């Protein structure tokens, strides 16, 4: 498709902004004005509407296609959530109203939703307090590890500068810990895909700040030694961080707080369906046990005895300060709140159970066709297989299989992640997909496996039915054409 700039014609107008009718000139002196008007698009309203509507149609999405992207929890996003997040009673509120005298009285409903969302997430995670400030999962991770750093500093233990991170963790974990000033020690996985306990014991010491555990981990397995891992780290004086990107696997069945964790982050755009928006906006709630409450970001919403909601600075002068200017991606949070209301205690538990069942069902039906490195274990919300059998036999790799799936109307699973599985294909079906959809996907995967034997060339050519063919990523990085 043409770029909007290629559709522009001089003097064509879109929407006309309002005019107040004042006649005075602006106060901006000539030397502070731009030389020429910004060369923005010049299209009609219909041109713009048609352009972006047609662009949208080039996307696969949950609303249009099965989207089993591992680790991303691409479940259905209820439309009522979109509707309520657009109510003028929320969207028209200026955020400074929360910080000026008399302001909070005008935003009681908004403050109540924040307070209630935090309370619900406390119960779901088994934590003492939750902040909704972080903008997304990685930002939540950063907030969480900064809280750990603040805790050690406040306890005169600033020498604890090492963060332990299993090699099965998301790439954001080491990147977030690095930004928080930690040195990273990677802990290897054992043959079962779990944390290697001996390696963990060897890594522990009085310079260890904590351990960041993704549970279930990125191979979709729940590490049964979780209690022992928490004990070991706690005994060594460290704190336990729960990467909750995969909370959909356990919510309503187990809680990070009960498992022994001190801090947890959640990806509201995954587990709580807010949705993902093609790369955000997300929301990254962070929950903490009592020991970390004093360090939470400011401001905090509190509830008075007579049921009013107030905005206070955090509990003490120990707060880590602002992570977001106000309350994070508030209108995203509204969707998560509505989602939790609709599901309730039973629905949250059932969503998780069905997500795990769907993943295991796919694994059961595919394990004769594809190699599953941890076949003997029940997986959680996702299953990881590899294309190793196909690669050995006919030279067709995971990327080829991913592209073959696109031609069959499926978004590809996550590929080449986790790094600890060679040629990984990580499949997360989520609870909202029906058995027919899963069966259709299985049939397509089996058909593709057959084609890898009969016509491997066709696999390398894929995709052929998508709006565009396989793209040259090397050329993009080399030519660096980053704007029009």
């Amino acid at each position, binding site marked *: 498709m043409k*770029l*909007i700039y290629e559709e522009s014609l001089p003097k064509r*107008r879109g929407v006309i902004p309002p005019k107040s009718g004042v006649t005075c000139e602006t*106060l901006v002196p000539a030397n*502070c004005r731009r030389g020429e008007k*910004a060369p923005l698009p010049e*299209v009609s*309203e219909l*041109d*713009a509407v048609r352009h*972006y*509507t047609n*662009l949208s149609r080039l996307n*696969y*999405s949950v609303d249009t296609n099965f*989207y089993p992207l591992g680790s991303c929890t691409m*479940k*259905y996003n*209820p439309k009522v959530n979109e509707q*309520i997040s657009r109510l003028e*009673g929320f969207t028209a509120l200026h*955020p400074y109203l*929360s910080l000026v005298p008399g302001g909070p009285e*005008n*935003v009681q*409903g*908004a403050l109540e939703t924040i307070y209630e969302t935090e309370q619900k997430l406390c119960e*779901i995670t088994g934590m003492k307090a939750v902040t909704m400030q972080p903008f*997304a999962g990685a930002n939540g991770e950063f907030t969480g590890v900064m809280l750990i*750093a603040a805790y050690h500093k406040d306890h005169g233990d600033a020498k604890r500068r090492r963060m332990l991170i299993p090699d099965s963790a998301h790439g*954001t974990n080491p*990147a977030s810990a*690095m930004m928080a000033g930690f040195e990273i020690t990677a802990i290897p996985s054992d043959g079962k895909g779990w944390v290697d306990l001996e390696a963990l014991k060897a890594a522990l010491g009085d310079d260890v700040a904590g351990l960041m555990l993704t549970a279930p981990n990125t191979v979709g397995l729940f590490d049964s030694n*979780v209690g022992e891992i928490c004990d070991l780290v706690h005994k060594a004086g460290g704190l336990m961080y729960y990467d909750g990107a995969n909370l959909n696997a356990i919510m*309503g*069945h187990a809680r990070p707080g*009960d498992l022994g964790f001190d801090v947890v982050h959640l*990806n509201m755009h995954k587990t709580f369906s807010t949705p993902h928006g*093609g*790369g955000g906006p997300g929301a990254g709630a962070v929950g903490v046990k009592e020991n970390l409450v004093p360090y939470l970001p400011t401001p905090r919403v509190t509830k008075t005895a007579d049921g009013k909601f107030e905005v206070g600075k955090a509990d003490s002068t120990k707060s880590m300060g602002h992570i977001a200017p*106000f*309350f994070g991606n508030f*209108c995203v949070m*509204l969707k998560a709140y509505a989602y939790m209301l609709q599901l*309730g205690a039973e629905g949250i538990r*059932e*969503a998780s*159970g*069905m997500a795990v*069942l769907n993943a295991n069902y796919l694994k*059961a039906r595919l394990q004769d066709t594809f190699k599953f490195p941890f076949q003997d274990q029940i997986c*959680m919300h996702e299953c990881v297989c590899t294309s190793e059998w196909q690669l050995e036999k006919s030279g067709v790799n995971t990327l080829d299989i991913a592209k073959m799936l*696109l031609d069959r109307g499926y*978004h590809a699973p996550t590929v080449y992640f986790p790094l600890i599985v060679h040629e990984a294909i990580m499949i997360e079906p989520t609870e909202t997909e029906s*058995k027919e959809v899963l069966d259709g996907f299985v049939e397509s995967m089996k058909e593709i496996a057959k084609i890898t034997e009969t016509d491997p060339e066709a696999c390398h050519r894929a995709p052929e039915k998508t*709006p*565009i*063919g*396989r793209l040259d990523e090397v050329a993009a990085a080399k030519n660096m054409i980053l*704007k029009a």
Partner: protein
Amino acid sequence: MSNYGFVPHGSEDLSEMLAAVGVSSVEELYSAIPEKLRISKLDLPAGISEYEVSKKLHALAKKNTSDLVCFMGGGFYDHFIPAAVDAIASRGEFTTCYTPYQPEVAQGTLQTMFEFQSGMCRLTGMEVSNASVYDGGSAVFEAAAMSFRVNGRRRFLVDGAMNPIYRNMLESYAANMNFEFVEVAPKDGKADKEAIAAQLDDTVSAVILQNPSFFGCVDDYTETAEAARKAGALSILICYPLSLAYLKTPGEMGIDIAVGDAQSLGLPLGFGGPYLGFMTTSKKLARKMPGRICGETHDKNGNRGFVLTLQAREQHIRREKATSNICSNQNLCAIMATIHLALMGKEGLYEAAEESAKNAAYALKKLTAIPGVKATFSSPSFNEFAIDLPKPASKVCEKLLKVGIAAGIPLGEFFPGMENALLVALTEKRTIEEIDALAAKLEAALKEED
């Protein structure tokens, strides 16, 4: 069929699937979690129907006063948003997809991202834009961290007239990075260019400026950018994107990194978010920039297409050596801004900016005609200005809120010593009648006994 959770399985499906897996119950699937660590029930209310959810949220929305006449700014403005922005951006094809890791089925997201980068470059006059960061405040931190990666220096000169919340965020984010922030006191409501130039030396990583300043004052920072360059430092300018349709751009000033929040480009105030952090820079610094970047390429048939590029900077590849931990950003907000720029266009955005500034000129004149009220600063402003009242501004604001006017931000809440100052912002949405009413109610409030 389940009553909860949008789960489609009937009981027949359920038994077939459990049998295929080889377990007798869903509970059995959780056997990897030690039983004593599991729970049987959450202590939460039972689920409610879609209708009840909607009713409850409507009631909560009604508890807010959403019809205040808004003169509040401070970095976030009540600008006009064409209906088509949300109408298109809310399409499921845009909202319910993930980050475009499979570009062949994500050209809609990717091309829009490319157009966003193009729009931000055209607006800022810079060469390269990323696909967004979280918000303006985190963008300022990312710019500082980027500057450290460029020159290895840890000292930053910070304009005291920058957004005080962003200033706090900068400290929070960089708390363990061993950075030093040296605040340079503002002069007449904006950065003190002489004082900054005098402090620039070979220990300074970057100078961080804001235009218009938090107090709404505008200036030209060409010389400051040049002075920074001579000291081997970078210049970072916090901008207000809509104003750049009218004001001298960071590109024209020779700034190295322009950042800020693009809320003013089609995003509602939304009680703080989601907003849209942006970062633009020069081509030579592009590889040091954090966040996703979309680039043009082609498929095997020579058709133009778009992909995420320069990914070797990012966390999923470089892990702890990445330029940032950022992963999800504010993509859908960037799509909204892109559609907004197309709908408003070259003339429309200029008019909205100019009209906002004209309204501000009118309001300043009107408000300073009230006995005892005067402009706090003599520096020229764009669409926002501070006025000194004869009384504490917080109390006056509280009174005006009661009559339906959000008169502005009482500056004493953020700047001790400025208790009588009020920061007032105007947009193209404010009418003469609304401005006149603000002046009348303010005058009345000042006359009232406390």
